[in-house]
């Protein structure tokens, strides 16, 4: 119950950050990737702000034996660069460039522009399902 409340609060802060930062706007995100057009560096500031906090958070994490509201840290490995990682990142990047949306902003946009983002969400879920069905 407490963990669920923390996750809800974290999700809300994340969504608020996306809306404030301009990242809910597909055209602005696409403009960051558009080096040959009117380049918009805003996304770099968003990434910088988030990294600033997270660098400190990782430094704190290294001194902790367990998280504050769970039994243990459940963190993915950091090594092992394989074909799946590379191919997946390349495919994701292509879709990001075409639509101007990645998963976070797309889901946040469900509250701001639900009808416009609906086709992207439906297709994204289909893509996730396709991966699930074709991977064993």
């Amino acid at each position: 119950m407490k963990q669920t409340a923390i996750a809800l609060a974290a999700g809300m802060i994340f969504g608020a950050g996306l809306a404030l930062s301009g990242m809910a706007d597909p055209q602005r995100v696409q403009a960051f990737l558009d080096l040959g057009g009117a380049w918009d560096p805003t996304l770099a500031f968003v990434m910088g702000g988030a990294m600033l906090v997270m660098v400190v958070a990782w430094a704190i994490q290294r001194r902790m034996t367990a998280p504050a509201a769970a039994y243990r840290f459940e963190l993915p490995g950091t090594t092992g660069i394989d074909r799946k990682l590379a191919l997946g990142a390349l495919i994701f990047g292509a879709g990001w460039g075409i639509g101007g949306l990645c998963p976070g902003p797309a889901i946040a946009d469900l509250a701001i522009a639900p009808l416009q983002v609906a086709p992207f969400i439906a297709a994204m879920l289909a893509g996730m399902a396709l991966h699930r069905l074709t991977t064993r």
Partner: protein
Amino acid sequence: MTLPGFSDAMPLHGLAGGLLIGLSAAMMLLMLGRIAGVSGLAARAIGLSAGGAPRDIAMAFILGLPLGALLMSLVTGPVVTRFPPTIWPLLIGGLLVGYGTRLGSGCTSGHGVCGMSRLSPRSLTATALFMASGVGTVALLRAGGLL
């Protein structure tokens, strides 16, 4: 505040929003011991992932995203969202984003924000590749007259 030479950029809003995103990711890490990776949590929330965070945690985080965006829009006024004029970029883009993030085990939040700040070789590689792929794809769209 605007950035000289980039009239559309919102550096201060971007930085402030980024700090909030970092705070959210730090809460997930230091309180729940988990990565705030939206693609993984979304897949988990709708039952398209066997592993990962407990389902209620994933669902709560994903539900929070639109709620938080809505609350911010009440504070700042309407949030600008400029979508492509046709449905095709959304359908094709969405499909590739859904499949690619699952195959590559993460997106802008998990690999980008959480992984890069941890100096994870996997995440640094993934982020470099999806950034390069995004830039290359938009360059192709521009070359093909589709932008």
